[in-house]
C-alpha cells in the first residue's frame, strides 16, 4: 500500500455466487452504509442480501410516458384542429381515435427515454473514472469474480475490524484500493 495515495476502500474477492451472497448479508448486518458488491451479472437475491430498496427507475419512465401521451394528443389537436385545420373526407378536425396511434407511440418513446435516462441518473453514469477501475484485479469483476468493496468513508470502517469481517465471510483475497 502506497503512503502517498489515500485509501478508497477495502476490496474482498470471492470465487462464487453463494459466498459473495452470504458475505453481503454479513456486511449488511454489520450496519455498513458505503459499500457495494461488484459482479459480472446480477445475482438473484443480492438486492435483499444488501438491503436495497426497490429501484426508482419506474417513476422516471412513468413521467416520460405521461409526457409522451400528452404531447402527442396536444400536438395533433393543435396542428390539425387549431393552427391549420383542413377538412379531409368529412372527418372531424380532431378525434382522439385518429390521434391515438401516434400518441401511443410517443408514450412508449418517452417512457423508454425515461427508463434509460432515469437509470443513468440514478447510477450516476456515465462517469469517466472510478477508483476501482484502476485496481488490477478488478477487471475480473466483468469476467468471473465477485467483489465486496467497503469504502473508508463509511463511519463503521476500521482497518482491522473490516478486514476481519471480510475474512470471516470467506474472501479469498483482501486488498486496499487507492483513491
Amino acid at each position: 500500500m502506497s503512503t502517498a495515495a489515500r485509501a478508497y476502500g477495502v476490496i474482498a474477492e470471492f470465487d462464487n455466487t453463494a459466498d459473495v451472497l452470504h458475505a453481503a448479508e454479513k456486511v449488511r448486518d454489520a450496519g455498513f452504509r458505503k459499500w457495494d458488491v461488484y459482479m459480472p451479472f446480477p445475482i438473484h437475491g443480492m438486492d435483499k442480501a444488501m438491503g436495497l430498496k426497490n429501484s426508482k427507475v419506474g417513476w422516471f419512465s412513468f413521467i416520460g410516458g405521461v409526457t409522451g401521451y400528452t404531447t402527442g394528443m396536444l400536438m395533433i389537436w393543435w396542428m390539425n384542429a387549431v393552427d391549420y385545420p383542413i377538412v379531409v373526407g368529412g372527418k372531424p378536425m380532431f378525434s382522439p381515435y385518429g390521434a391515438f396511434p401516434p400518441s401511443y407511440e410517443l408514450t412508449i418513446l418517452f417512457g423508454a427515454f425515461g427508463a434509460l435516462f432515469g437509470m443513468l441518473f440514478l447510477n450516476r453514469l456515465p462517469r469517466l473514472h472510478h477508483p476501482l477501475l484502476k485496481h488490477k484485479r478488478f477487471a475480473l469483476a466483468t469476467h468471473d469474480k465477485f467483489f465486496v468493496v467497503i469504502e473508508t468513508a463509511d463511519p463503521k470502517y476500521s482497518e482491522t475490524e473490516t478486514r476481519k469481517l471480510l475474512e470471516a465471510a470467506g474472501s479469498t483475497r483482501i486488498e486496499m484500493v487507492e483513491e
Partner: protein
Amino acid sequence: MSEAATTQIAVPVPPKELERIPLVQNNRSFGWISDRVSAVTEGKTPKWWWAAFIPSVTLLGLLGAMLFYQITTGVGVWGNQHPTMWGWDIINFVWWIGIGHAGTLISAILFLLRQRWRTAVNRAAEAMTIFAVMCAGIYPAMHVGRVWFDWWLFPIPTYQGVWPQFRSPLMWDVFAVSTYFTVSVLFWYVGLVPDLATMRDRAKTRIKQFVYGLFALGWTGSNRNWSNYEKAYLILAGLSTPLVLSVHSIVSLDFAVSQLPGWHTTIFPPYFVAGAVFSGFGMVLTLLIPLRSMCHLEDIITMRHIDVMCKVTLATGCIVSYAYLMEFIIAWYSGSAMERFHFMNRALGPMWWGWFWMMFCNMIIPQLFWFKKVRQNLVFVFILSIFVNIGMWFERFVIVVVGLYREFLPSSWDYYKPTWVDICTYLGTFGLFFTMFLLFMRFLPMIAVSEVKGVTAQADPHHPAARGNGGKH
C-alpha cells in the same frame, strides 16, 4: 476456497424425467463464456468473414448506385405503374420490417415470459432487428419521389405553415417505425453496456480500451447499479412488447384503413404481427445456424435453442395459415362481389403463382417442423428457414401487387413487372443488412455475455453448483 474447484460436491440428482436440459452445455464456467464470445471479436479476422464481407460491401455499393439513380431520375425507374402504385418498394419495406419483429419478440416478450433460453440469441436477434429496420426505412423514404422533402413527414414547421395530416395511417406509420427504431436501439444498447465493460476490461490496445470504455459509460458491475439497470431493462421490455405489437398493426393499417377489397379487413393487425414474427424467426435461424458453428458457439446456442425457435416458427406459421384461409371465408361470407372477385383472382388469376408460393412456403413447408428429426437436422432447418423468408416475401407480394393490379375499373387493369432497378435495390438492401451484421459480430459481443452467465446453474447462489466455482475451463 480454491480447493473447492477441484473437490467434487455431492449434488442431489433429480429424477430423470424432471431433468432440464441446461441452457449452456458442458457445464461451462463464467470465464469460459466471456472468453468464447469475445474470441469472435478478438484475434485475426477469419477468412470466411472476409469472404462474406466483400460481397456484402459490393452489394451495399450497388444499393448506393441504385438510390443515386432513383433520386436523380425519379420513381419512374421502378416498376410502379398505374394501377399498381405500390410495388416492390412497399413489399420490401413490409418484408424487412417484419423480419425485425423477431428480435424484439425475443428480447422483450420472451423476457417478460421468463423464457431464459432467449439470452443466447437475443443480442444477435436485436442487432438483426435494427439492421432490418434500417433496410426497411429506405423504402418509404425513397418512394415519396422527392426525398429532399422527407422531413415534411415529421411535425417540423415549414414555410407554408401546413402540418402533417394525422388522420392518415401513413403518418401513424412514421411515428411507429421511427419509435420502433429508436427504442430497439436503446434496448440493444442498454443490454450491451455490461458486455462493453467486459470488452473494455479485456482490451489489449489503448484504442480498444478507450472506445469500449467510452461506450461502457464507466460501468463497474456494482449491485446498486445492477438494481437500477435490471429495473430499467424490465421497463424497456415492458414498453417494447406493446410497441412491437403496435408497429406491425400500424403497418397493416396502411392497408386496412383503405377501401380496397383484400385490404379493407379487420383481420390484418393480428395476422401481420404473426407473419412478422414468423418471418423474423426464419431470418434468425438463417443467420444463427451458420454462425454458431463458424464462431464455435455450439455450447451456448444449443440444439435446444434451435428446437425452440423451430417450434415458434411452426406456431406462428399456423397462425398465418389460419389467416390465409379465414380471409377466403370472410370474402365469401361478406357477400361483396368485389371481395369475392379479389380472392378468386388471388388464387386463380394471372398472378396465381404468387399465392401458390405463399401457401407452399408459409403453410405447407413449416408443417415439417412437427417432426423432431427435422428440427434436429441443421441443414434441413436452414433450408426450411430460407423457404420461410421467401414465403413471407410472397405474402407481401400477394397483398400489395395482387391487391392493386386488378382494381375496380377493368379498363385500368394492368400486369405488374419490376424493373432491374427494383431488383438491384432489393439486392442492395441485403448488402446493407449483411455489412452491418458482419461489422456488428466482429466488433461487439454477439451473445449477451452477462445474461448467459446469469442463466447457468452456478450463477444461482442456492444451486449446489454455485459452491463448486464450477465448470470446465
